[in-house]
């Protein structure tokens, strides 16, 4: 590590008005885009790439990284305020973020999300700076066996997010995995559950499904609650004196932030695995490690911190294979790879030899992007928190038309609007009968990864699945997954017993 050059690169980036301006602009655009259900950071980066053509490399990378980091945080705003995750990786934030909002703590939830996103992002950027070659080497040892077991590990988290009934959670998960198989089979192109309906050939798009399950289902349930007289208008009586969390809250959540940031960075560094997986793994891990797992999902700051830090930790993690190996870690870094190539720089091992100052400036730009996200986020917290004060009778129709537009805009397809409505109905009915929705989402993310790697591994080993026992990392993942499942079952039993006791106590009192 060339410390002098690293310091010089940081000074260059942090004193350039153009880089700072572009990064702030990117962060603002990213937060606004991320907050609209259906608009992802990937779309934001892809849309703004043409604007960066005329710029130098570092300001353009600053702009794109600003959108990336801002978009990651922006997704949590709508997840917390209106139960509609703006981006797939914000899907786990609503588990505790939305209940916090319902308790009248929208501002607090937003500031925790922003602070945790910043800390996770900084942690990811630091790990990227100091450990990128090492982490990249480890991540590149991942073949289909390890990816399969990583997917299995991700799925093991389902038990801890299942809620009161593990059976219902697992039914939801298998239902999600089954839904992920709709369309053409990825290996042989065979049609599955298509019923002669052509648009189904490519399966259910993820984002319309996500918007349907959460946003549309919430609108339908909200209308029912208003008519039944169960919904009361929330007035934001919360006074936001500090846009950042107070010291007591930070003391309570710092461990969740660090573990989330580390999980996010590690998962982000694995090509093909991104923030959407990392947030659930981090949520499950932190819930299992908590002394009071029964409080998770009821609106506690720890849940928001664990997911948001993992979410932004991924940004640093995903840059590791991009810079050190030339392999993008996720969709956004794939677009960034294009931006590098356009500027005549080929990321990869030789970049550390030939373009070391550029590598260090990219590290600094990522750090600056996280800082820009914090500054813009701080400026917006009070404004965003006011959204909950909008009259529900006006808010629900607005959520509906904005969400349906988001679903349409992904593929410009009416079919996706239909998918969104269909999953809205499914989500509404599942909520009614207390089937958790998050396992479906996790299964939809991990299902294709699980199947493709399973088929690839079995094919490569001539049908001998047990060959997987010769892959130590895969076996390690499997053992951790089994431990996670057992521990989550034990935790859930403890939660159920505690709740039964409390109910008895309340009844006797």
């Amino acid at each position, binding site marked *: 590590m060339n410390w002098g050059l690293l310091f010089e690169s940081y000074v260059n980036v942090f004193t350039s008005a153009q880089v700072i301006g572009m990064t702030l602009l990117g962060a603002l655009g990213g937060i606004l885009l991320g907050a609209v259900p259906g608009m992802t950071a990937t779309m934001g980066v892809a849309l703004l790439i043409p604007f960066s053509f005329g710029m130098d490399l570092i300001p353009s990378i600053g702009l794109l990284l600003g959108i990336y980091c801002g978009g990651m945080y922006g997704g949590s705003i709508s997840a917390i305020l209106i139960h509609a995750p703006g981006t797939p990786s914000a899907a786990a934030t609503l588990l505790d973020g939305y209940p916090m909002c319902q308790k009248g703590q929208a501002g607090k939830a937003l500031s925790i999300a922003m602070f945790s996103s910043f800390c996770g992002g900084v942690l990811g950027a630091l790990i990227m700076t100091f450990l990128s070659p090492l982490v990249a080497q480890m991540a590149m040892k991942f073949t289909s066996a390890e990816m399969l077991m990583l997917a299995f590990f991700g799925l093991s988290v389902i038990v801890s997010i299942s809620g009161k009934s593990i059976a219902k959670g697992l039914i939801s998960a298998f239902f999600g995995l089954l839904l992920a198989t709709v369309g053409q089979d990825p290996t042989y192109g065979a049609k599955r559950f298509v019923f002669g309906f052509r648009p189904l050939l490519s399966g259910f798009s993820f984002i319309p499904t996500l918007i349907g399950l959460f946003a549309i289902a919430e609108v339908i349930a909200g209308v029912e609650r208003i008519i039944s007289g169960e919904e009361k208008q929330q007035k934001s009586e919360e006074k936001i004196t500090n846009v950042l969390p107070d010291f007591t809250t930070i003391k309570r959540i710092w461990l969740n932030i660090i573990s989330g940031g580390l999980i996010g960075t590690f998962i982000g560094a694995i090509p093909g695995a991104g923030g959407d997986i990392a947030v659930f793994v981090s949520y499950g891990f932190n819930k299992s490690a908590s002394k009071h797992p029964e409080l998770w999902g009821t609106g506690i700051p720890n849940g928001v911190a664990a997911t948001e830090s993992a979410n932004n930790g991924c940004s640093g993690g995903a840059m590791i294979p991009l810079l050190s190996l030339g392999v993008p870690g996720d969709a956004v870094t794939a677009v960034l790879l294009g931006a590098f190539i356009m500027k005549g720089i080929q990321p990869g091992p030789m970049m550390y030899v030939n373009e070391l100052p550029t590598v260090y400036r990219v590290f600094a730009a990522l750090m600056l992007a996280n800082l820009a996200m914090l500054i813009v986020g701080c400026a917006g917290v009070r404004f965003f928190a006011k959204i909950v004060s909008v009259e529900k009778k006006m808010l629900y129709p607005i959520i509906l038309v904005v969400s349906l537009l988001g679903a349409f805009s992904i593929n410009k397809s009416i079919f996706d609007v239909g998918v969104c409505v269909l999953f809205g*109905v499914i989500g509404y009915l599942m909520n009614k009968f207390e089937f958790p929705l998050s396992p479906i989402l996790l299964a939809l993310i991990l299902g294709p990864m699980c199947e493709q790697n399973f*088929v690839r591994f079995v094919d490569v080993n001539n049908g001998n699945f047990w060959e997987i026992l010769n892959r130590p990392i895969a076996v390690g993942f499997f053992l951790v997954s089994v431990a996670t499942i057992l521990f989550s079952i034990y935790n859930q039993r403890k939660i159920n017993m505690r709740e*039964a006791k409390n109910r008895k106590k309340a009844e006797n009192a």
Partner: protein
Amino acid sequence: MKKTQSKAFANLICSLFLLAFEIWTYIETTGFRIHKRAHVQPATFPQIMITGMFIFTVILFVQSLLKVIRGMNEFDPDNEMSASINPFKNRGVAAAFFVIVLCVLYTYLFDRLGYVLVSACISIIIMWLIGKRNFVMMILVSFLVPLIMWFIFYKLLTVNIPMGILQPLRDIVDKF
């Protein structure tokens, strides 16, 4: 409260529906194309998933059946009243179903009438349904929100959204 109104009974009915769904999907998978040389057939993965779902549905079915037959203690969460989906007995459910019908109509008319008009109509109807009576505000919000969203998506994000009968609006925007 009758046993048939409990959550345990609702779970029992749900599991029966799920079992029927799983049997139907499994039968569907038997019709998938078979590749002679493949180690893993296109039907294998869905069949594993259906089997997993089946196992946990049977567990839910047995749990619920035992609770319904043997009875539950008063602190059992499954002994609570189940949510209703009967639109004839619950006005809230009827309204929810009406919103679902509106959403289906929305999907059908999205391409024909265009995003702005169909969104404005659905917004006004839902606002009226849930008790908003300030018509000026209703009309203003219902038209302005989709219009602003269309403008952002069309002009800034270059996403082409159907405008239906309001197509001339796009031509006006394009001129400027």
